[in-house]
């Protein structure tokens, strides 16, 4: 192994290229892309789901009260029909 390590030891240090500094400067000064945080996306999804649930609930409730009204109107008619003078 000594021979192999001697070869590795012979690897010379080189100068960093000049383009490295330019690349760093460009990366530092480029505008950061606006990314919507995941928490905001979750919040928006939760609001959407909540509004959908509310909408469905309201719809079901309205439907039920309409049915109840319909039944009670039927009952009234029946009461009138059974009335004898």
């Amino acid at each position, binding site marked *: *192994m000594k021979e*192999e*390590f001697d*070869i*590795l*030891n*012979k*690897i*010379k*240090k*080189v*100068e*960093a*290229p000049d*383009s*490295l*500094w330019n*690349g*760093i400067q460009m*990366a*530092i000064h480029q505008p950061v892309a606006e990314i919507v945080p995941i928490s905001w996306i979750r919040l928006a999804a939760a609001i959407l789901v909540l509004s959908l649930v509310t909408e469905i609930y309201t719809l079901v409730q309205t439907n039920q009260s309409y049915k109840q009204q319909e039944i009670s109107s039927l009952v009234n008619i029946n009461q009138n029909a059974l009335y004898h003078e």
Partner: protein
Amino acid sequence: MNFEEIYREHKNLVYNLALQYTQNTQDAEEVAQDVFLKVYEKFGQFKEAAALKTWIYRITVNQSLDYIKAKKRKKRWSLFTAKSIESDDHSSIPDFNHPGVELENKEEVERLFSLINELPENQKTALILLKIEGLSQVEAAEILETSPKAVESLFQRAKKNLAEKLRQSEGK
């Protein structure tokens, strides 16, 4: 010390260490750029120059390892999408381009690096820091946030594994 001074003082250290990991000038430059962006974000936290140097070494090691992992993943994915199963050896880096290697040693160093690249990350790091970068066990231990004994143990295991891989490759 401002950022430009930190850069001037450590650019060669970062670039050369990244080169030992990637063995490619283009990849080493990308790693070095990412390292200095991290340094730019946090260099204000360091008051001691020695702590800063150790920290920069540590970021370079981690950034290099992450870069190699990402490159392997990308390679594997491109192989998968191309439905090519010709080669299953992703550990060797085909685009060897290390400017610090003398022409007469190029073939031998390339072969050695292809075997070093197959070692576990911590063994590879111990070998690079001690044998190529020429750091002491104490310095390497500080960078790896471990004890000098643990570094010695890692190096011995790396040496043993490398010798085994060399034997196997020569037997082929």
